[in-house]
């Protein structure tokens, strides 16, 4: 096997015809040298809700992103469509830029447009999203509206694996307002919570997972009073059926 060393050496000796370190060396301008650019679309919730007082809603909560590890452009969309009234009770879109700030968390900033039935609002958004210890997916956002009102929203989600396909997920969403915005029915303090339990089954990979579940919505304090004054309820239980979709 000495011959190998020798012929490798001989090989090097015959190289003078090649400018071994000249400008002839290829520069890596292949895609390998570029940051991976990725995209994805997910609907965490895409469901039909039926409330304890016979209200029917179509609800979605999804997002789409495009970008790299370092910078992503994200579009978040949430909505609640009252089927009988044929009206959007909630219609919220956010356009965000997102960048990592730690191993497990991203900071995000952008704008939010609320365009349900009734008055519209535009907000500036600052937030954090990521994975907390013990596998809690958390998302916290601070909003400042074009009316100058400030509010905050906190989301947490946890998944319990009954099997590797049958998954129970628990979600909690809470909103707090730091000032009152009477026009859109928001009082100061804890505004509302939404808690949900959904039992899903991964039917096609992780891209289509139908689920069944229950959701509890509640309004608090002045916000609850405003809702009652408008003739609305302050607490609802829903049975939900839907699917988690990602592609």
């Amino acid at each position: 096997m000495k011959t190998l060393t020798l012929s490798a050496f001989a090989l090097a000796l015959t190289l003078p015809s090649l400018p071994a370190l000249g400008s002839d060396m290829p520069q890596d301008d292949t895609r390998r040298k570029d940051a991976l650019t990725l995209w994805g679309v997910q609907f965490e919730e895409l469901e039909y809700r039926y409330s304890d007082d016979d209200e029917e809603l179509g609800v979605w909560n999804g997002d789409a992103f495009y970008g790299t590890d370092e910078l992503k452009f994200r579009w978040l969309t949430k909505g609640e469509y009252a089927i009988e009234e044929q009206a959007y009770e909630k219609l919220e879109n956010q356009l965000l830029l997102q960048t990592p700030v730690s191993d497990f968390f991203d900071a995000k900033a952008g704008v939010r447009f609320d365009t349900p039935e009734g008055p519209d609002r535009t907000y500036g958004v600052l937030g954090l999203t990521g994975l907390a210890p013990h596998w809690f997916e958390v998302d916290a956002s601070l909003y400042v509206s074009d009316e100058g009102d400030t509010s905050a929203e906190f989301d947490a989600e946890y998944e319990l694996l009954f099997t590797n396909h049958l998954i129970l997920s628990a979600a909690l969403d809470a909103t707090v307002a730091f000032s009152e915005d009477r026009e859109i029915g928001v009082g100061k303090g804890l505004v509302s919570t939404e808690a949900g339990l959904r039992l899903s089954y991964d039917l096609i990979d992780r891209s289509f997972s139908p689920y069944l579940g229950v959701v509890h919505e509640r309004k608090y304090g002045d916000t609850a009073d405003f809702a009652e004054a408008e003739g609305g309820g302050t607490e609802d239980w829903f049975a939900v059926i839907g699917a988690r979709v990602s592609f």
Partner: protein
Amino acid sequence: MKKALMAGALGFLMPAMAAAGEYNITVDRVMIDTGDFVKEGIGYNGASPGPVLRFKEGETVTINVTNNLDEPTSIHWHGLILPFEQDGVPGISFDGIPAGETFTYEFPIVQSGTYWFHSHSGFQEPNGAYGAIVIEPEGREPFRYDREYVVQLTDKHPHDANRVMRNLKMMPDYYNRQQQTVGDFFADISKHGFMTTLQDRLAWGDMRMMKADVEDVQGFTGLINGKGPEQNWTGLFEPGERIRLRFINSSAMAYFDIRIPGLEMTVVQADGNNVQPVTVDEFRIGVAETYDVIVRPKTAEAYTIFAESMGRSGYARATLAPEKGMEGPVPGLREAPLLTMADMSGMHGMDHGDTTGADASAGMDHSDMNQGEMAPDGMKDDAVMAADASDSMTGMDHSGMDHGTMIMSEGGASDPFYAEGSGLVPVAANGGKFLSYADLRAQKPLYEEREPTREIELRLTGNMERYTWSINGVKYEDAEPLKLQYGERVRFKFVNETMMTHPMHLHGMWSILDVGAGEWNPVKHVISVQPGTTVYMETEVDAPGQWAFHCHLSYHAASGMFRKVVVEGGPDQGNTARAEVAKDGGDA
């Protein structure tokens, strides 16, 4: 085709030039039928895997590669020592082969053994662009055999590789269906008690790491020579014959544990280089490694070649039989291993105390092993290892974590190339001998032994949650090339700070794995580095030019665990690197 011309001139100058073999390869879209699913992919000469190329040491080969795809391609000759322009890595060795064009590779064959070739463009390799290389030596083989077969493994996934990458980036556990469930929690409680189980779950949850994170990409069908388990590739033999099996792991992501129930295997070659024969019942083949074994079935029965993936999420199966159609019993998959805290001992996040990651893994430092001469059958310095290991465990001990109560792996097997207490340590299914890196000894030293001129530390780093992989915390896109001087002997120190095993592959030059055997250290082209361990290899820098250096897990390489290596100098440069290096001896 200026490059090809120059290569031609180079070939002409070669003193070792003997016969010249000419080969034609086309790169094509093909259909791949695994028996479980049929999938469009990329192949050579109309099939995946491509042909087995048979070369002879000393000849100069001319290989015309015609790209019938509608995208650029390339072929990398994995493990072959050749001029860098012939190495086939777009952007590093050459410009690649544009759609519709033919590129002529020409290089002398200066080695013998089992190797393989594959595309180095995008994800063509996981999509099927791979084939085998067998090189007959100039002289006699130091072992006898009556017949031989190539046994080339892969992990064919129903998803196109681009989609696999995207899914992993969106959801790193997308393909992991071996995660611990509520049922496992209760099973652990009844086995280990409530508090121990709870503490175990809290410790892992605190790190946001999964014990089940052994294989990123599950859901594949294991293939042997392109045949799925149901299609059962069969090699024929006559009882009493010695059969040489040339195992090649061409997987994108899967390590395989290989056994042939009823037969002992004598390992005679690793990564194309002969090793002192070692007889085993089972061995683990890392991604891109090759192992040649000799088996001698004495009875006229069918034997199953069973290749279980390391994470037990899939398997490949083939048969050795005296007649076509015979089948041996096919074993079931064993229970999936789980990582332990020992596999996390290289992680930075673990060090809440004053010890650093490096300190924590120093216990596993294999340089310590060099002091005590290692017996051929592996680690004998158990006392030293145990002491070091307990040091490292105290080092990484942090608030609220009591390793005494951690749920550790069962079996108690140990291997110096795994963290002490690792959940990944393989155990032979029949309770017999499982090959360790520590068993490998070169048949003949390839290089004269000398002190390394310097040491380069390469920390293997990553973030599972973001599915980013890097070296020293830097992804390829942001990295400067690694510069080596022609004539150096560099000692590489790999520190695995992740919870995954990385098969590190340096192109163009040999990787001499330090198993503590001095000049008898085995010579390889892929070095598998287990979680929580530090492994050393040395390289004689004897090949000028630019080379690729990367983790051979396709999706790790693509997401950043990749470097360009530039070898500066060389005899033609009038550079005296070799002399200078000799002067400053070993300290660097």
